[in-house]
């Protein structure tokens, strides 16, 4: 069935985008990630302009992180205080990100910056995750006990001033790295059209030493806040959020996520991380190729002052 998208200004097949939302929702339910890093390039690949794609994926991430956040919140697996501080940084970061997005688009370098950020962040996180999970799988097979993380080991982050106590995380750290982390990932999120969970989770674990059981819930709640703000900012600053497209992606996504979550429970943690790492690296590789292969047309058109 054909549907005209009023902001993207083109007619698309509804089922293609429902299916796309469903497939990405399946993966995000399985791995516990937002899936923005898969959905944004997919949308751009199908002919939606990068501006509309990035802006419309944000409400989709809001929807998927809402249902997951509620589940974690019920089990008290969210550090509220840390979420609020991360979120405060995220507000500033998202706002700067949306304006950077607009500035880059007007000088014609948005696509390049999005592509380079994807390669840098997906490439490095994917590589680290793959190495770590393959090691864990190999250890599990050889029957050796996993090396547990040394708790109480302090890094440079713990020397910063303005310390405060996070009761649920059982931490006593400075608010400076927390706010800075929120701001940094918020900025990247609104420029790249991703929630940033795959950056936030390792940063919370390795940088702030947040216990693993509250990391995912806290990261999800943070994503919810920043992406909600980014949606409003994209709508006001760029007018590029297509509500019809968002509805298709959300509807497909919430259903797909349920099936994904069931499959995810049947797999072991290391297996899941290895699979996710492969997906992340595949996306990074695809983007990398698109930069180096000769483009279909070396010329492109943009309307001056146009929303798209």
């Amino acid at each position, binding site marked *: 069935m054909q549907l005209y998208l009023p902001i993207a200004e083109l007619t698309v097949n509804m089922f293609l985008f429902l299916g796309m939302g469903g497939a990405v929702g399946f993966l995000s339910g399985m791995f516990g990630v937002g899936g923005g890093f898969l959905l944004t390039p997919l949308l751009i690949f199908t002919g939606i302009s990068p501006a509309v794609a990035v802006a419309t994926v944000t409400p989709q991430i809001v929807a998927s992180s809402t249902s997951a956040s509620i589940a*974690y919140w019920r089990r008290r697996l969210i550090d509220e205080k840390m979420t609020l501080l991360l979120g405060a940084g995220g507000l500033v970061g998202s706002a700067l990100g949306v304006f950077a997005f607009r500035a880059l688009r007007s000088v014609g370098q948005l696509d390049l910056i999005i592509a380079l950020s994807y390669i840098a962040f997906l490439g490095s996180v994917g590589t680290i995750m793959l190495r770590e999970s393959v090691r864990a799988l190999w250890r599990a097979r050889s029957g050796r006990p996993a090396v547990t993380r040394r708790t109480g080991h302090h890094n440079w982050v713990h020397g910063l001033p303005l310390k405060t106590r996070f009761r649920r995380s059982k931490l006593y750290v400075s608010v400076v790295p927390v706010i800075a982390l929120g701001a940094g990932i918020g900025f990247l999120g609104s420029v790249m059209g991703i929630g940033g969970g795959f950056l936030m989770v390792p940063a919370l674990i390795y940088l702030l030493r947040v216990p693993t059981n509250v990391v995912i819930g806290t990261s999800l709640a943070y994503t919810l806040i920043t992406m*909600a703000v980014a949606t409003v*900012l994209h709508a*006001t600053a760029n007018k590029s959020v297509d509500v019809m497209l968002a509805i298709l992606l*959300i509807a497909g996504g919430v259903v797909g996520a349920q099936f994904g979550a069931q499959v995810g429970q049947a797999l072991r943690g290391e297996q899941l991380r290895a699979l996710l790492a492969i997906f992340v690296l595949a996306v990074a590789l695809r983007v990398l190729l698109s930069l180096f*292969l000769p483009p279909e047309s070396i*010329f492109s058109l943009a309307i001056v002052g146009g929303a798209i």
Partner: protein
Amino acid sequence: MKGGLVAAIVAIAALAPAAAFAESLVAALSDEAVRITSNFTGEQIVVFGAIRGTPDEDAEYEVAVVVEGPQEDVIVRRKERLLGVWANRTSREFKEVPSYYVMHLSENFSGALDPSQLSVYRLGVRSHPFVQEAAAEATAQLFAEALIALKAEHGLYVERQGAVDFLAPNVFRTTFFLPSAIPTGEYRVSVYLFRSQTFLAGRTDTLSIAKGGFSERIARSADDYPLYYGLVCVALAVFTGWFAGVIFRRPL
């Protein structure tokens, strides 16, 4: 719409034989306004025309019909290789470029006019000021040609020979296709009548293309109330996410 069209054709046909010394044109569009609604997949516009005048035994009438969309300022960017990466490097801005330009010519139009005459009557997208001005400089010309090629790829710039059919020596018809990604605004439909390289008559009608129904309401609210629009999007997303969680009782 169908009834109106038939009435228009009958009216044109009735007017046509009324001979006069100088040629004059009557034309009608199958639609004066196109509404882009949720199920819009493009639309066909039929242009009917009739010529009042004295038919010539030796020379046939030749017709050009041009549909031109609202003008816009466009930036054309060119990618170049930089350290192996394809990146936008140079760009050129063109002012007042037609967003849509489709010209249909009758079969016998060939050779009737040479390029210089085409530009006198501003026929064909290459006779547009933005292309003419670019012709002075090689790089600008290259970018203008790229613009035309990209527009043509999206079906927005088209020139077709033999697309105007004569139903009778003085009655003609042509059908335009408006693709689904068509820009909105006021369009001009111009009909030019020639015979033996001489311009006889011309007329211009307007065609308005706008978003309609639900699409229009969404586009308008996104434009007029961006803050509320954004908040509604968030509310919708949060509600759907919450609702899905309730129905499926999503496990961790």
